[in-house]
Each structure stands twice: as structure tokens, then as C-alpha cells.
């Protein structure tokens, strides 16, 4: 069962559809108790980093943290991935989970923002989430802020400079692009997650 956390930021229909296509059962929930007991937790998200504050207000932040501590597999997509970091210059004073050190920042001047479209993702080191995903693969991005390269980076994309396309640390995973919209490579990533 894949538990999709609903915090009123964007549209969960596409992510759910992709997991269902892979034969997974899904539940969309805003109930912290459901999240706390989940084995596979997905936090999607689009738009502004400040939207993640709703997770805190709804009691979902604590629930997600507890689930992760108890060993649940976690996947953050787009802003959901950024939320795994300490914070973002998009919304100073609002803090992410801090599972990974670093601050999410806007693309450097000179790059056209937002970064929208299909870009190449290059694998870096060993990864469970990118297992059997060709390197490079094309994936679909749409965002204005990006996470720096860190020790947990397993997938790199170049736009203006290099940034983290995929991060992985024990049972937590994050993808800046939209795997549910990234054709076969994206579906393979979701399948890898579901099979953990």
C-alpha cells in the first residue's frame, strides 16, 4: 500500500494513477494516524516551499517523521524532495525535515527560470531507487528552486549548474523531477520504490 500525503498542494491524481498502473494499491490521506502506520509514504508537491508549512499545521510533519523513524520508506517528489532538506531560500523561516543537510536555492542568475521540460539525469554511485534506470535518462522537470549536490546525491542534472535530481539515504528518497510524468524511466523509479 502506497500512502500519498495530501496537504492541498497540487494534484495527486497523476501520482496515484502511475502507482496504480504498476499494480500498487494507493491511499490518499490527510490523516496523521494513517501516515504514522504507513510502510510507503509519498509526499508530492508543487509550487511554493511555504506550502509545506501546511504539513506542520496538519500534524503531518510529525507523522511523517515518526513513520520514517519506524523504518517506513519515504519518497519526496519535487517540493516534497526539497522538504527533506534543512530549508529553502524560497521561504526563509520555514524548515524542512532536515533529513539531508543543505539549503534549497533558486537557480543562479543567467538560467531561464522556471526550469521546465525534459532534461537528462545522470546516475552517481550506487542507488536502490535508480536500479535498472539507464544513465543518462530523460526526466520531466518543472521548478524554480533546486537542491545542491550533497553526499546523498545519486542522480545529477545540469541546468545553469549541476543540482540534485535524486537523493537517497537509507530508507528516504527524493526526486526533483516528476517520475509520474517521465515516461518509462519515471515508472521504473516508482516501481523500484514500491518494491522496497
Amino acid at each position: 500500500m502506497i500512502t500519498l500525503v495530501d496537504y492541498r498542494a497540487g494534484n495527486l491524481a497523476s501520482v496515484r494513477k502511475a502507482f496504480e498502473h504498476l499494480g500498487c494499491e494507493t491511499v490518499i490521506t490527510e490523516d496523521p494516524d494513517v501516515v504514522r502506520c504507513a510502510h510507503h509514504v509519498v509526499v508530492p508537491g508543487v509550487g511554493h516551499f511555504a506550502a509545506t508549512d501546511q504539513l506542520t499545521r496538519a500534524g503531518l510533519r510529525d507523522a511523517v517523521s515518526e513513520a520514517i523513524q519506524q523504518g517506513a520508506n519515504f519518497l519526496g517528489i519535487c517540493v516534497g524532495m526539497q522538504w527533506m532538506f534543512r530549508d529553502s531560500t524560497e521561504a526563509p523561516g520555514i524548515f524542512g525535515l532536515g533529513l539531508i543537510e543543505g539549503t534549497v536555492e533558486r537557480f543562479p542568475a543567467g538560467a531561464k527560470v522556471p526550469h521546465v521540460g525534459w532534461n537528462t539525469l545522470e546516475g552517481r554511485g550506487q542507488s536502490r531507487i535508480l536500479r535498472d534506470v539507464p544513465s543518462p535518462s530523460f526526466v520531466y522537470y518543472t521548478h524554480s528552486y533546486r537542491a545542491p549536490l550533497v553526499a546523498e546525491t545519486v542522480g545529477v542534472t545540469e541546468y545553469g549548474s549541476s543540482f540534485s535530481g535524486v537523493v537517497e539515504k537509507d530508507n528516504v528518497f527524493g526526486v526533483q523531477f516528476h517520475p509520474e510524468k517521465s515516461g518509462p524511466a519515471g515508472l521504473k523509479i516508482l516501481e523500484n520504490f514500491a518494491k522496497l
Partner: protein
Amino acid sequence: MLTKRIIACLDCNAGRVVKGVQFVNLQDAGDPAELARLHAENGADEIVLLDITATHEARKTLVDTVRRTARELFVPFTVGGGIRSLDDASSIFEAGSDKITINSAAVADPSVITAIANRFGAQAVVLAIDAKRNGSSEHDRAGTTGHTPSVSAEVYVAGGRKPTGLDAIKWAKEVESRGAGEIMLTSMDRDGTRAGFDCELTSAIASVVSIPVIASGGAGSVQHFTEVFRDGQADAALAASIFHFGIESIGELKQQLQAEGIPMRWPI
């Protein structure tokens, strides 16, 4: 490297894909769900479904068509036509679309752009601009001075039937500031002609906004795509008619563009 997108557009009427030539002469071309999937398999980077009738009666048909089309589609999927409010947009998103396009509704009340962007994110709001050049003769252009943009066009709504008096370049800037995530610019002068995109107008708009500009209207050859990416500064190009009847395959188009040095997602 970020690639340029080729977007397959399906013009739909009452749940069937029809081919649009300057908004008239409709011809049945098949099932939208099947065609969308085929286009994606053949290399389309994105699918746009435009409901060109969008009457109240057709509303439910559209939602069903979107649901059916979205089910097996794993590339970005945009739906437009007759979306007037946040509620309309919500029903389309719930049916599985990733983005919506709005045109008439945004002109009538620009706050609808912000309302949809706040709820679903700016990336989900594609502002469609149907534009027709003002003063096409050399005499009219000669009258422009240094600070006046040499390209000017008027925004039309209601499927290209109604002029609004809005300047397309100013409108593009306004919709960006109100939260639109992309602009889909259709040249009404070129639409259906297969004479090539309006590169001048596309470039004029792409240079004043930071959000991506999708060029539409006029595609008839591979060269036209090269021109609109290179000279028109387009981030994506949309075509309906050339794909439906086997004149070009998307894969063939992308291979040729790649050979010309245009970054493409190919092989997929």
C-alpha cells in the same frame, strides 16, 4: 541538457479528435485516448487536448475523455477549452490532467489565473494566447519608431472569433505576473496554413517573459520547427495537423531536428 519539446495537440469535439484548419473544416481523426498514447510512444514530449466545442452539454464528455486519456499516459498532459473557473479546472485536474490552458476566461477575469495557480501551482496553468498581427503591410511597419516594438499583435478569444483590443506582448507579461506557468502562443495568421510558425511574434513574446513559450500555428515541415526553436526562441512547439495523417512521424521529426543541433529527447 534541457531539450526543446515537441507537443502533439489533439483538437477534440464531442469526445473525438478532429483536425482543425483555421478553426473550420473539421475532419474526424480518431479516439483521443488511443492517439495520445500512440503519440507518446512515438516520442511526443507532451500531449495537449483542446476541446474546441466546449459547450455546456459537452462538459461531461470532456471530463470522461480526459479521464480515459490520462489513464495510460505518462508524459505531461494538458487540457483546454471552455475552462472558466477554478471549479472547472479542478474537475479537469481530478480527471487526471497535469495542466490546463485558459484563454477567454483569463481575459474576462485575470484573477482566475492566480486562483488556479494558487491551488494547483503555476506549472499547471498554461495561458493560451491566440494572436493576430496588427498592420501587416510594410507601410504600417515603417510607421513604428525606435522604442515601439516592431511586432504587434492583438489577442483574440472565443476560439479566434472575438478581438479583445489587448496587445499580445503586454498581455503575455501580465499573465506571467499573475501566475501563469507557460504561454501557448497561437498565431492566427499562420494556423492551419502549414506556412511555418510566426517566429517574429514568438521571439517578441519569449524575450519579454521568463516562463516557457510554446509556439503554435503553421507547422508544415521540419525546417519550420528548426526556425521556431532557433529564431523564435520557443521552448516548445505544438502541432496538430501534421501528426495525424502520417505526413511526419514525431520520431522522424525529432531525429532530424537533433541532426540540426536542436536538443531533443531522443531516443526516448
